[in-house]
């Protein structure tokens, strides 16, 4: 019966929901807006769907569309410069995790003196950031509803993160129609990312009774819809349910946090420059197998949410059904479940494990105490798969 805190920004969800973005921006006091996005969003033709409602609401805006995938500090500095010189005090971030995270970082730099490195870590942002609306165009990161902003620091080969409620969006828009054009492999990588958020939040040390039901609902939605969305992307119903599962997963990630899978993923992502979703999934199944003995009841509940028949099974067998189900889900979405696929050098495993072991924030939120040796063992298991 410990205490908990639950936060979530206003969420606008549904097909066509972005049509309301102009009115919402106006309600939130926007007059001059900098839209932050990437080339992929521009070429997918999504931008006019944001611009038209802004025009209709009489809001001035400019567009910055140079956000790189897994962005580094350069694009951040560029955005802040444009915003300061152009007198923009309101941001709309449109895209996947990269565009949304860099928008959050830029908004915090507008109202807080210092370098971005001053704000790394948990609750290190003194002032509320400039107001932001986030529009998700993938179904995965959940960044639209979280207090996290990640970026790669090439100098130290580390993924680092700002975690502060002061950078949460004022409003989030999730419009499943914007995700229709997402290619299969992106759908798979981002979708499994969302799934992993929900699973890690459901077992997290910092989970709470408000996050549990939302996490199970996200697990149910994604388990039933990921493969259809990947393999039959024009099926709107699957897109819709993935968008919903993803934002619910984001809500629980924001309040319960992630764990070991993410801790193991970051060093791999930095070393091998794979996307966040892929770096997670290649560690996911083996991490879950390794820590299973401590979590039988939770695994059994998740098995049931994934549609496994657990009635009549022992708790142990139900938990094993969960492990089988997640492997099947990944493989069904054409996702790798081990490190072999990305060519990880076995000699690097101790170094990767050392780096992962320093992520005390995430490991401390894992309901199984993992030593550097344990982490090496998980990587090694994943290497052979």
């Amino acid at each position, binding site marked *: 019966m410990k205490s908990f805190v639950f936060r979530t920004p206003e*969420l606008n969800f549904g097909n066509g929901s972005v049509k309301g973005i102009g009115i919402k921006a106006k309600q939130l006091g926007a007059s001059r807006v900098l839209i932050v996005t990437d080339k992929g969003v521009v070429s997918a033709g999504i931008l006019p769907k944001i611009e038209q409602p802004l025009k209709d609401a009489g809001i001035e805006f400019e567009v910055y569309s140079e956000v790189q995938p897994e962005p580094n500090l350069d694009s951040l500095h560029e955005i802040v410069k444009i915003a300061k010189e152009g007198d923009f005090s309101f941001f709309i971030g449109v895209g996947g995790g990269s565009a949304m995270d860099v928008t959050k970082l830029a908004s915090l730099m507008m109202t807080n003196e210092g370098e971005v490195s001053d704000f790394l870590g948990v609750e290190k942002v003194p002032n509320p950031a400039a107001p932001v609306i986030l529009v998700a165009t993938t179904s995965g990161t959940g960044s639209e509803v979280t207090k996290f902003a990640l970026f790669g620091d090439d100098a130290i080969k580390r993924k680092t993160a700002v975690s502060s409620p002061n950078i949460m969006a004022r409003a989030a828009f999730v419009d499943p129609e914007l995700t229709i054009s997402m290619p299969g492999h992106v759908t798979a990588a981002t979708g499994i990312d969302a799934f992993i958020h929900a699973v890690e939040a459901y077992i997290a040390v910092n989970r709470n*009774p408000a996050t549990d039901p939302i996490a199970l609902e996200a697990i149910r939605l994604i388990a039933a819809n990921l493969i259809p969305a990947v393999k039959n992307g024009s099926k709107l119903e699957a897109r819709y349910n993935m968008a919903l599962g993803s934002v619910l997963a984001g809500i629980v990630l924001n309040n319960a946090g992630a764990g070991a899978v993410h801790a193991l993923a970051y060093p791999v992502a930095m070393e091998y420059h794979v996307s966040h979703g892929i770096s997670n999934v290649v560690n996911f199944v083996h991490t879950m197998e390794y820590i299973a003995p401590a979590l039988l009841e939770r695994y059994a509940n998740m098995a049931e949410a994934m549609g496994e028949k657990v009635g009549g099974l022992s708790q142990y067998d139900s938990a094993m059904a969960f492990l089988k189900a997640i492997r099947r889900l990944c493989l069904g979405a054409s996702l790798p479940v081990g490190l072999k696929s990305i060519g990880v050098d076995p000699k690097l495993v101790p170094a990767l494990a050392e780096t992962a072991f320093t992520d005390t924030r995430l490991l401390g939120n894992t309901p199984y105490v993992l030593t550097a040796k344990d982490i090496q063992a998980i990587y090694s298991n994943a290497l052979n798969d």
Partner: protein
Amino acid sequence: MRNVWNFSTAGKIIFGNDAVQGLGKLMQSLSEKTALVVTDPGIKAAGILETALSSLKQEGVSYAVYDQCEPEPRVEKAVEAYDFAKNQNCGAIIGLGGGSSIDLAKAVAVLLTYGGSPKDYFGEFKVPGPVLPLVAIPTTSGTGTEVTPAAVLTDLQANLKIGISDNYIRPMIALVDPMLTVKMPPAVTASTGIDALTHAIEAYTAIGFEYLLAEGEALYQGTNDLTDALAEKAIKLVSDNLRLAVDQGQNVKARYNMALGSVLAGMAFSNAGVGAAHAIAYPVGAATHAPHGVLCGLLLPHVMEYNVPVALDRFVKVAELMGENVRGLNQFEAAMLSVKAVKRLIRDVKITATLRGLGVNEAQLPDMAEKTLEVGRLLRNNPRRLTAADIEGILRNAY
């Protein structure tokens, strides 16, 4: 058909035993000016006010206390509290108490921010913009007002309840401390707890958001997956813990789970909406002045019975969540078990189960049915269409 739903709640929910001890630090971070505490004599007498104030003192937060809130507060009370507060240099407002004190605090927050009189803001979407930081600290487990966009007041002249409804008055912070509810008397525990159950069941069995008959923005929008997940958990928590909370008030675990169930129900219904039980409770409340929770509890099983045919699968789930064994039954029989389970719970916590028991005269029923139709914003969330004759039928079943 509607395509979009929107979900809002309090800006932040802080939940846990002894959470109120962090109030001083919290207020310090919100404003340097005076904190206005809105509460009632009962809370003061129970020593709860002192607990809150000592945390403020500890952190050197200056405060002013308005402790004259009344149950189901009149519009005049909002004016009185506003007059008390307006020259105190208030920078933030704390609503401490049951639904009445928190609702009054919401109304005062609007007045302190924008001036005028309460009637300027009655209705939906009449608040011009954000209000002063508002912290809601519930001392009962039921209303959910700590996370909702509504403040309900009583207009004595017109003999009706009237409210301000706007997302701008959702509290910035809901500070929920189950320990504050431990001394709540059994009858209050029962009526507020049944209110929470009504919120959860009506939110879970409301019309799907796609089919809400409304144009444009709406506060209460029908069900979606997020409100469903919250409502299901709330139904289970209340159903499993209300009897214990009533009969073993000191059972901290039951109190904790009731406080949690109430907040989750508030999060669900303040987006999905409530239905006919709440709508009918308005005119009946005006006539009887019975506690809101008692009215909702009394009406709930009869409204459920009326709604069962159009939402069979949802009522089956309610039955399951309330611990009924539905295996081997057909869907209708299983759904009807939810009605039975609610009736049993109401009986066990000793809530008045009939309108007759509240002193309603049978001749009043047609008029109450007519007046219910005026609460259209709630009725449109009900999964089954209702005419005046249908409502009268429900009232007769509840008589």
